[in-house]
């Protein structure tokens, strides 16, 4: 069996397209690469969607935590504390069992128990809380001079926020936010190891790597392949976020631009 045929059979296996049975014996390197690569589709799906949606909620949370009104501030603070203070692993389990019991009450909510939707919601709320805290920190360190300049130009309310506060906040938060994005992609590997079932063996990259390691009892091939894919993904994220960072900082002199720095941020 040629490698191209394997790719045809298993390239989209994680979405349920192609060969239904996973290989059971005589595993080739090509099968390892194809299936694990196919699983990466899920990691990218979870990561990208959760980041995009989480970005907006995070901005709202940062504004909420910075508000003077306690009715707005307290819920934002609690939300951030609960999601940052507990393990993502437990959040997945809790959400899954919550969705299970919801499903028994209201059958229409059954899609929530699938990983594709339920886990995405958990990841979305989780990344919103982490990014919200980052944005809040950045919001607090917007230079006073910038705000005074905005006042002097007669900007106020929404205009001031959109033209001065928000871009500056993003610019200050961006290196930390890049970090958050990298570790969010890493966190997506937890999905199929928590309560959420991999329906018809449609799992993510680590799920398939674990499948191979269980079958062959040889961890030295599948896990380095996962590592290879994730290093590629991390480099892509750094590239994309670096380009955005350059755009956010384009008006500043070279030596004042924010530098990217890695800081571990697991959940």
């Amino acid at each position: 069996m040629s490698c191209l045929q394997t790719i045809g059979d298993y390239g989209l296996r994680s979405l349920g397209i192609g060969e239904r049975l996973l290989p059971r014996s005589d595993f080739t390197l090509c099968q390892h690469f194809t299936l694990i690569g196919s699983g990466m589709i899920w990691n990218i799906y979870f990561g990208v969607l959760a980041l995009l949606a989480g970005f907006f909620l995070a901005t709202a949370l940062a504004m909420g935590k910075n508000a003077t009104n306690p009715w707005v501030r307290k819920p934002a603070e609690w939300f951030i504390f609960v999601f940052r203070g507990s393990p993502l692993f437990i959040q997945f389990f809790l959400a899954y069992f919550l969705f299970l019991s919801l499903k028994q009450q209201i059958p229409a909510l059954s899609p929530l128990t699938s990983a594709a939707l339920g886990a995405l919601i958990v990841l979305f709320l989780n990344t919103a809380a982490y990014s919200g805290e980052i944005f809040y920190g950045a919001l607090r360190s917007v230079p006073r001079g910038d705000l005074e300049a905005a006042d002097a130009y007669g900007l106020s309310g929404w205009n001031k926020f959109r033209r001065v506060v928000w871009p500056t906040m993003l610019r200050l938060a961006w290196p930390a936010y890049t970090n958050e994005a990298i570790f969010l992609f890493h966190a997506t590997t937890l999905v199929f190891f928590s309560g959420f079932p991999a329906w018809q063996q449609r799992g993510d990259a680590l799920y398939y790597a674990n499948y191979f390691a269980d079958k062959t009892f040889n961890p030295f091939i599948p896990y380095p392949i996962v590592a290879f894919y994730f290093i590629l993904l991390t480099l892509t994220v750094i590239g994309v976020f670096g380009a955005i960072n350059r755009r956010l900082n384009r008006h500043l002199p070279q030596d004042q631009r924010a530098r990217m720095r890695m800081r571990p941020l697991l959940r």
Partner: protein
Amino acid sequence: MACYLTTGKQMLFYWSFGTVLLLLAITAPVALIFGFGGAVAARSHILPLRWFGKGYTAMVRGVPDIAFFLFFVIALDQGLEWIRHKVKCPDWDQPIRQGSDFIVCAQAKLPLGNSPQIWHEIYNFSLAIFTFGIVFGAFAANVIYGAMRAVPRPQLETAEAYGMSHRQTFWRILVPQMWVYALPGLSNLWMILIKATPLLFLLGVEDIVYWARELGGTANPRFTDYPHGDWRLWYFLALLVFYLGMTRISEIYLGKLTARLTRGQATMGGEAMRRAGA
């Protein structure tokens, strides 16, 4: 209800909280030692050692930590058995990897096939601790390496001017001063470590997640072992509260520790404290 929550199996659940705390208490110093070693290796003048140190600190940047957890537990187990196999059965002529099997001679098994259950559990737990130590050591190495570079250069130059050797400068000047720079990163790491403990479940240790699933669930919808329906939601809610409490307590104590270490240091925090006191 009160009677049910004190049955034998429930007690195992409560004991597993002890397992988690024990893991934290052992892993934290192990990871710190690994991290220190990694950072020192990354600063070494010997090229292969420096490569090793840099590689170790870089490994956690791009790859998810749970991939390492899953990998190291099997890899360490097989590595240990392989070494024992080489030592104990030198005249074994069959290959170790036969298809999908990993076969070593009976004397090389870890733990030995006839040893009691408790040794299997201790062995699993030690593997888990070692794995946690390696992965979190890499994170700690990142932090400590950064902290060593953050110590002001003039401090080291002064030491050299006093005629201290390289080793003396390192142990008497650099190491004592680096902790205050490492503390924010290390406290962040401690929080991460707390939140990583449920992953013990994936490493085959019977920890709180295992028991919460076990006790909350109904083995069979009709003939259940436990006098209740699906309580997993409530068990996991209890775990969530436990972790939130741990986080809050850590935050308070780390805040106090930071304040203690910042006192009298030539940093912004130290300066602020001096002003507030004066």
